[in-house]
């Protein structure tokens, strides 16, 4: 298994589409960091302006209450309500880039990474069927289940590592921007842990998406079919199920993935805190294991022609 895994990881790294994607991703990160650099303003004047604007929002909110002595339920005063609810956070009004926003940025970048993970997983095996290279490989190692699982694991590991690498490059680029034109205030150990967790959760789900894409493409023996199936399922079928059968939501792959990536299942599930981030991850892992298991059984039983 170690040899199969090593060979497959090497093949993944040697794929041109993977390399091109890496170059495009790095170029995109550098472009984004440059834009942030030029849009970020540092200094007391900029921060002071943010405080004034923030206070303006609060004042407008307070004026909207005809009877200030009757604050909304749960709040001791109208001012407290307006500070928490009626005005955007002060950080968001500050024109200087704050590195503490990286946690949310990582959640945002997880979405395209998950979609790309699905696509790379599908094309990893789809290309093998397209070029017919499964045949010679099986004449070198006829243990089909081992070969299949090795390939699936390689796709998963490669996507996880690539996603982590991209998040790391993005993080470093934005850290440099924050140090030069923004603020690193609040970037303590707790923040670092939270941010690392956010990046890791996105990368892990991208890896599991790769395993799902791999399994679908191995049955279809075609990348394009797998991508269509994947996007129709996640883009259409799950939306319909979510709308028509709300009771099924806790079992939808996409919702469990979102619950794990955000780390806040209560915001994702309509029924509230019905599961933890860990159980949401367990559901996604279970789907991936079942898909790869079925794919392996299918691969084992079918003729390779």
């Amino acid at each position, binding site marked *: 298994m170690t*040899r*199969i895994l*090593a*060979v497959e990881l*090497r*093949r993944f790294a*040697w*794929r*041109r589409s993977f390399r091109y994607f890496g170059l495009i991703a790095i170029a995109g990160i550098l472009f984004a960091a440059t834009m942030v650099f030029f849009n970020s303003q540092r200094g007391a004047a900029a921060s002071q302006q943010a405080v004034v604007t923030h206070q303006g929002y609060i004042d407008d909110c307070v004026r909207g209450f005809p009877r200030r002595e009757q604050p909304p339920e749960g709040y001791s005063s109208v001012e407290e309500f307006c500070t928490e609810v009626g005005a955007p956070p002060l950080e968001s009004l500050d024109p200087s880039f704050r590195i503490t926003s990286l946690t949310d940025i990582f959640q945002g970048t997880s979405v395209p990474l998950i979609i790309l993970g699905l696509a790379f997983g599908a094309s990893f095996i789809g*290309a093998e069927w397209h*070029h*017919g*290279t499964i*045949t*010679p*490989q*099986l*004449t*070198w*190692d*006829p*243990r089909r289940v081992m070969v299949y699982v090795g390939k699936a694991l390689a796709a998963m590991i490669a996507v996880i590592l690539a996603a982590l690498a991209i998040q790391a490059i993005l993080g470093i680029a934005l850290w440099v921007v924050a140090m030069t034109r923004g603020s690193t205030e609040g970037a303590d150990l707790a923040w670092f842990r939270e941010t690392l967790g956010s990046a890791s959760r996105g990368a892990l789900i991208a890896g599991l998406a790769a395993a799902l894409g791999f399994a679908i493409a191995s049955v279809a023996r075609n990348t394009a079919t797998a991508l269509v199936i994947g996007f129709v399922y996640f883009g259409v079928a799950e939306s319909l199920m979510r709308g028509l059968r709300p009771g099924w939501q806790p079992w939808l792959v996409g919702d469990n993935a979102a619950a794990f990536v955000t780390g806040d299942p209560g915001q994702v599930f309509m029924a509230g805190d019905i599961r933890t981030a860990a159980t949401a991850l367990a559901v996604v892992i279970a789907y991936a294991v079942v898909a790869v298991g079925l794919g392996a059984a299918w691969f084992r039983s079918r*003729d*390779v*022609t």
Partner: protein
Amino acid sequence: MDVIEVEGLVKRYRPLRGKPTMAVAGLDLSVSAGGVFGFLGPNGAGKTTTIRCLLGLVRPSEGRCRLLGADSQGSLGGVIGRVGSIVEAPAFFPGMSGRKNLALLAGLDGIGRTAIDAALERVGLGDRGHHRVKTYSLGMKQRLGIAAALLKDPEVLILDEPANGLDPAGIKEVRELLRSLGSEGRTVFVSSHILSEVRQMCDRVAILARGRCVAAGPVDDVLNREAGRLLVGVADVEAARDVLSRKGFEATLVDGRLSIGPPVPDPASVTKALADEGHYVAELRREEADLETVFLELTADKDEV
């Protein structure tokens, strides 16, 4: 010891629509160790399906195949390291170099760089190994396929149409290469429909038609048994033919001579039969059939084989 044993092999492909296709219809074949064995048959005779069954890529509908004593459907893993093969057109990743493609296969068996270089040199691709496979001609891809098959330094080579796409010089090189491999004590099992090649390259041959073996044995024996003729010149050919007919020989008149066979009888028995009746043989020679004649006769679309 037979390195290849095929017993009662039947393979039916069942398409989703339409009738099942009988690719192999009860094939029995055994190939002993050493030398070059030709596996001859027209397109669609079942050569590639037989090879796929031997290599465990396709599951037989009935019968069984054994390679180096191991059942192709169960225990091939123990012997596959001693078998090199090409099935149909060699399949490689076109975007990677020839060397990288070989490295991926070699990695599965822990084979090092030296063996890759040696294999590339042996097939004349030493200076093109670093070029992408998509820049290779069909003949170069075929050579790369042979290099891949040689990587394991195999005891048994199973090559499906290895001369496909090669120019005359390439065909000659491959023929010499395979002959030298056969003379080294390896068993080279070559499927082909290029009759002249088989004749020049192989020690033994099996001819396949409509999924069955219709002739097998040393090349010369097959030629003589199946299509050789004895040409006899006598003064009175009509009377001599009557004599031979009475004594159980089937003779026909061809260009003023008697043609006897196939199968070719013992020449001494023919001359004695004629001399006993007062017909003295003026000319007696064996007409060697060419493989093309044998092949066409044996593989002609008859109701019975």
